[in-house]
């Protein structure tokens, strides 16, 4: 890929051992939380990562920051191989890549002031040494996220959810990172506050030239903030492409179903709309189906889906890729099942 790729994953795997009995138990199986992810995140873009709960999107976000060990594949950050990175160089990654967590109530230490929380990364990385310089930087960061620098001495309980999330963002920005992972950063906020935080993230991204990975199950929010969208299902990226293309002309049946299920605040549109209701639940990541992992719920599943694991292929708009056999056999995934003719 071109030189403007900041984060790149190839065949990335995060498998966890599960089950087993007794003391010093032997694992009975593998939970494939992330199972062969190919993903490039370009410098300065916002990539939205969507999927249902349990699809591995949070684990992938954690893996990109080396917060969980990877068990296979390669992962590079700005050209540096991250797998096996240790010591000082891992610490440097921690400075250059930050995280905004889901729950602004749980992710701030209730016994530390805002200044202590936001100032900690500065201390850890030895930035802005000296009391005065550090206090100035904290004030600057608070202002950057739209908080009054005067609140630096206050404790988390004195803030609302939205304000706390701003503190969390200020902390993530303290080390002047290039890359920010926002894991469900607006999920626990009220609608009007969600809008404030979404606008803030967009402004910061433009102002600081950040690269954002925006993980969310809220497709409307993802569509709003992202340049590109990646759709994840059972540990694998099944579709990726420009936000507009994925949002309006999805090429993978799963993305189509996901989008059709998003309720829109327009009564007339809602009444006319045809939902693609998927049957059944997401299979367990400890028992991934053979072939295409979506085939057990796919309305279009046909012969090759049972045994051939589809790879991402270019379809639809420029830069759009989907992992679906429909594109290898018939033209469009919108075709009815009877129109599908499998190659003998």
């Amino acid at each position: 890929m071109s030189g403007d790729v900041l984060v790149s994953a190839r065949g990335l795997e995060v498998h966890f051992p599960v089950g087993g009995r007794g003391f010093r138990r032997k694992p009975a199986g593998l939970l494939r939380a992330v199972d062969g992810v190919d993903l490039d995140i370009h410098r300065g873009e916002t990539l939205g990562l969507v999927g249902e709960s349990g699809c591995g999107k949070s684990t992938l976000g954690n893996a990109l920051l080396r917060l969980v060990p990877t068990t296979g594949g390669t992962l590079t950050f700005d050209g540096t191989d991250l797998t096996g990175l240790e010591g000082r160089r891992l610490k440097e990654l921690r400075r250059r890549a930050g995280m905004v967590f889901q729950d602004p109530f749980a992710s701030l230490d209730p016994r530390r002031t805002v200044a202590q929380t936001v100032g900690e990364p500065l201390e850890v990385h030895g930035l802005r040494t000296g009391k005065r310089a550090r206090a100035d930087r904290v004030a600057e960061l608070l202002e950057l996220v739209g908080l009054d620098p005067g609140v630096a001495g206050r404790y988390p309980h004195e803030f609302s959810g939205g304000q706390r999330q701003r503190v969390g963002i200020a902390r993530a920005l303290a080390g002047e990172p290039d890359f920010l992972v926002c894991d469900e950063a607006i999920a626990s906020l009220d609608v009007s506050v969600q809008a404030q935080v979404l606008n803030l993230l967009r402004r910061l991204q433009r102002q600081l030239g950040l690269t954002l990975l925006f993980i969310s199950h809220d497709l409307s929010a993802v569509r709003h903030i992202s340049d590109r969208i990646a759709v994840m299902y059972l540990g694998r990226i099944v579709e990726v492409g420009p936000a507009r293309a994925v949002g309006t002309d999805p090429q993978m049946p799963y993305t189509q179903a996901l989008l059709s299920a998003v309720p829109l605040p327009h009564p007339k549109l809602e009444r006319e709309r045809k939902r693609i209701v998927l049957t059944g639940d997401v299979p367990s990541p400890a028992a991934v189906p053979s072939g295409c992992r979506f085939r057990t719920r796919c309305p279009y599943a046909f012969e090759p889906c049972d045994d051939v694991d589809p790879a991402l292929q270019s379809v639809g708009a420029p830069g759009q890729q989907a992992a679906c056999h429909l594109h290898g056999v018939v033209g469009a995934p919108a075709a009815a099942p009877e129109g599908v003719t499998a190659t003998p």
Partner: protein
Amino acid sequence: MTAPVLEVEDLRVRLRTPRGPADVVNGLSYRVGAGETVAVVGESGSGKSVSVLALLGLLPAGIATVTGRALLQGEDLLTMAPERLRQVRGPGAGMVFQDPMTSLNPVLTIGRQIVEGIRAHGDVDKAAARRRAAELLGEVGLPDPVGALDRYPHELSGGMRQRVVIAIALSNSPALLVADEATTALDVTVQAQIIDLVEKLQAERGTGVVWITHDLGVVAGIADRVLVMYGGRCVEDGTVDDVLENPVHPYTRGLLGALPDLARPAVGGVVPDLATVPGVPPAPTDLPAGCVFWPRCPVRGDARCETEQPPLAVIGSADVRLPHRAATWCTDRTSGTESPAGGFR
């Protein structure tokens, strides 16, 4: 018009808190007809959950003071004797709570929890109740309903658990179903399944539904009538088309403008910033005098905003069955945040 299933009049709830009395619900009135869905919308702290918990007598008695009237098929729930209320919960009103993970008992099988509800309200023997339970699970679309009876909640996924909770709520064919953020914890695909299910059952049995949510998308799909709550008051109500397409209250308009909208694509490749409602909702212990929304209101300007509470006044025609009403002094409907549907004239 047939008699309404539920008729709420001037419902008020005051809670005793360490910080003084909190006026959580302040004069709420609405009615739910048979087969009708009323959506109660609002952000956290707007009093929407407390208002329905109060109806079913689920608020702690020592802490909550509930006044007003709430007629369920003609009987006042608020003055009802506890024994009678026990009989009514179930055949009269079923409730689905937000979190399917915590609203089932983890140490009892699914079957026992459904059978318990059925036998509490009817002289049914165990075997018959079990058959009925399996039937119900089948109706809510659970695969292998008979096998599911002997399973524990942890063996089911979130969507399946919520179906079980709905099956329990429906086990006595209630006249009224109250769903408090019933699909909020679920994925959109599962949410779509649950909504389809409730609509189907409603069409079959004529159940009246009160659907509490903060998701205006869900509201657009299911509601006949919408009630927007803010600071414990209804600030706007009307048919779903009136409220979502032609919102009048600045708060409703703010909420709609704050939504990222899949149906409103970027203009010329640039996605505009979302409209925001500045500030945070008022604490119920310290409600502003005058209009509850004025401290955050982008269009306040009327002299009465600060001092006088605006009444819920009819907008447009009062002759229609469900008039569109809003509680605001704001008469200039073109300023402030834009309606996403562009419905302002």
